């Protein structure tokens, strides 16, 4: 990953060539890396789902609309924040899109400062999310190493149960509990319970 990738990429999806091209020009003046697509389909085919990115999507497009694209990204579990370009404000649309996780709207013609701030914010979020994702994946991988019994024990540790209680719950000896505990700590690279907690939380909670 190069520095630009770490910074993030801005995808611009708009069927109007002039608007897309000019927006790219504008954003590149702020030294963003911009990749443009003239249709939602092409974007889906050509984007990097893993990248830290923000998508600026025109709401009104022939073929797959901007809103449909958002749905598609959610379905594909792509976590980009989305900025919608609208020609006119539409409150119901805004509410529904916001609920789904899009972050903001921006009207044409664009206020440069506002646009930049927004992009910046979005990319920050993207980065955050990416990091979170990363953590989660790690945690998940770690947690996957646990056996079922170990998961049961971990569950109770996270719940704040004492070893004795855990032993009683599971019908095993304290010694066994302590042994499990040691194994868990080891597997999850945790030295303290706090670490354990963090790992568990990052993994999105325990799988039930």
């Amino acid at each position, binding site marked *: 990953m190069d520095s630009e990738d770490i910074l993030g990429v801005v995808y611009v999806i708009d069927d*109007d060539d*002039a608007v897309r091209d000019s927006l790219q020009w504008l954003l*590149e*003046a702020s030294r963003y890396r911009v990749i443009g697509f003239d249709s939602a389909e092409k974007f889906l085919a050509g984007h990097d789902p893993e990248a830290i990115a923000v998508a600026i999507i025109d709401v009104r497009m022939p073929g797959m609309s901007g809103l449909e694209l958002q749905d598609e990204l959610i379905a594909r579990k792509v976590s980009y924040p989305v900025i919608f370009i609208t*020609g006119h404000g539409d409150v119901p649309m805004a509410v529904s899109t916001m609920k789904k996780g899009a972050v903001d709207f921006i009207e044409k013609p*664009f206020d440069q400062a506002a646009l930049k701030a927004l992009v910046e914010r979005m990319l920050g979020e993207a980065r955050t999310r990416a990091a979170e994702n990363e953590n989660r994946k790690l945690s998940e991988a770690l947690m996957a190493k646990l056996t079922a019994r170990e998961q049961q024990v971990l569950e109770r540790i996270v719940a704040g149960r004492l070893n004795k209680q855990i032993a009683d719950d599971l019908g095993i000896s304290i010694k066994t509990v302590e042994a499990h505990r040691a194994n868990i700590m080891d597997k999850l690279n945790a030295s303290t319970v706090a670490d354990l907690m963090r790992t568990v939380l990052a993994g999105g909670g325990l799988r039930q």
Partner: protein
Amino acid sequence: MSAPPSPPSPPLPPDAVQLAFDRMARAQSHRFEFARFVPLIAIALVVALIAGIAYLLVNEDRALQRDALHRDTDTLAQSLSLRLQAISEATNALARDALNTDRAERRFLGTARDAMLAKPEVVHIALVDKSARVAWSVASPGPLGEAVRAPNTQLTSERIVAAIDNAREAHSSFFSPTYDDPTGSAGPDNGGPFTDLVAPVFVDDVYMGAVLARVSLPELLRRSVAPDVALRYRVSLLTDAGNTLASTTASETPADALVYVVPIYLLPDGVMLETSAFRVRSPLLKSGLAWVVAGLTLAVLITLVALVRRDARQAKVERKLRAETSFRRAMEDSLATGLAVIDRLGVLRHVNAAFCQMTGWQEADLVGHSAPFPYWPPGQFAEHRTSLNALLKGEAPSSGFELKVLRSDGSLFDARMYGSPLLSDDGEQLGWMIAMADITEPKRISEQLEAAHERFTTVLQSLDDAVSVVAPGMSAGLSDELLFANRGYRTLYGADALGHQRLQETLAAHGSGIAGEAYDGTLKRWFDVRTREIRWVDGRDVRLQIATDISDRKATEEIVRQQQEKVALTSRLMTMGEMASSLAHELNQPLTAISNYSLGTVSRLRDGNVTAADLLPALEKTAGQAQRAGNIIRRIREFVKRAEPRRRPTPANRIVEDAIGFAEIEAAKKQIAIHTQVPADLPPLNVDPILIEQLLLNLLKNAIDAMANATTRRIDLVVRRLDDMAEFSVIDHGCGIPSEHRDSLFQPFFSTKSDGMGMGLNICRSIVEFHQGRLLLEENPEGGTIFRFTLPLATAASVDENARHSDAKQSNGL
């Protein structure tokens, strides 16, 4: 049209019932009754007796007659024989004395004459010598005498000669065989047949000759038969061959007459004497007593015949009566209806078997009693009495009385009793005939039916739907008959078939005529109508119609439709808005692009380190976008320009003609006439003719639509001059515009019409006002609406104005 004559009906089969009774009656009457035969036997005996007596008497009579006959005949024969004997003696005497004396001839002749006088039947005496030559002859002095056998004539007849020989040989006299002697003057009627008595003359035993005495047999007979005998009998002398020699009468002996024959020995040839009795009335029959007896017998016979006939007639009548009576009794007894006869005073005189059976009372309980009768239930006396009184007064209704009847076992049943006068053969009223029928069962059934009917009626009547059954009139002119209508129908349409028909016609006009929705213009309601052909109770094909009032539903539907219209309208608006917004969006694109390019360029310039070459593409693109925007603007402007009115002087009548030309087609379709009035001297108008045509067309179409139900089917288009304007009036006689709509009439999208676009009047006003005119509407006092608008006339000044106006527009780059 006459039907062909039907073939003669076959003879009816014989009345089997009547025949059966006849047979039975006949069988009964054939019983052997001895008594019937007694008179017959008696009569027969009497008749036989009388006949026997009569027969005996007749027989006796005949016997007597026969005896008499015999007796008389014997007597007669005797007398005949005596006479013959006498003659014989006389002749013998003559023969003895013939040659004995002197003057023998004279004495002979004289004696002969005397003898013949005594015995006229001797007609001739002659003496013949031994060679049969006549010596002396003398005829009788009587009428029969004839001078035959003249002396000296030779007797040649062999018979006579033989007789003479016989006599000579026998030395005694003989009668010769009989003979006829046609010779002689009298011919056959000379007294024959004769017989000769031949007496031989012997002198000292020497044959000297013979004396012949010719005897006339008829005369002999005449003389022998006494007159009274001759009256009683037919006496004849016959030969043994049966030939009549002589007879007292000329008449023949009938075959059945009593006859007696006696031979006369003296005479030769077996001559016989026959006597037959004349039929003599039996003294018996002459007897008055016999007549009386006969008469009585006859009377008895007649009486007998009459008796027998009467008897037969009686028996026949009796048979018929018996048959008839049995028949009637059988009828009466086999009736299920009870019959009773009440006399004029109200006394029960007769009941039939069924009556007794139905009521359980015996005849003895009923007959001879008067009201109250045993079959009157104690609690119902009043009703029974009332009906009885009515009956006795002759006021019984033909449908009878319905009463409760008490049986002998105490149970009750419902009965219907009918009364009718009982008349004798000659029309005299003898009393009353009551028929009683047990109606318990029919009553129960009728009550059940009524209950069922009521249930059915309740259901039907409580339906809100209008149910009606109509029989179509058989021929034109006969109205349809309403056979049934429930309350729902009657409430709507009353009691005739018109409502039904109206709905039917509407249905037929708009569809299949079997089912569908129909609007009743009279009631102003919508109905869902279903019809069906059914067969009515009397066999006719009739139409059942069920009409459900769906006016509410229709109203709701109408509201829904109107709302849908509004939605459509709204969407039209939206489209317009969308069009505008899309236009706005279109413009926004290049604008955004320009903004982006510019801002980007500025940013880069501020940051520094950019070359002109870096910036050039962006700036060029900017310019391009500006052009793009310009094009969009141009397009809008062109669009606007196309709708821009173009005014020029136009004659009013041309506008009017063109507008009418379009409107007339629609007007003609709706039978509306458009009348125009345009002053011939009106100067041309300074207008955009296309716009004014559109305006007029719009107003005319509105007028036509308003007059859909008008009676006066005429639209007037009147033009007149008002100073330097022309005033147009479109006058319709339609439904007019209600006051509540008047205010909103010119609002865009407003319409009272179901298919109205609602843009018409607003645009009309815009057009008029663009031309510096005014558009007003007012109420037509004759009903309807008048739209008036004014348009400017073309003056030289206004034409210049037009030119300048359009130039200015062009120069403004609009």
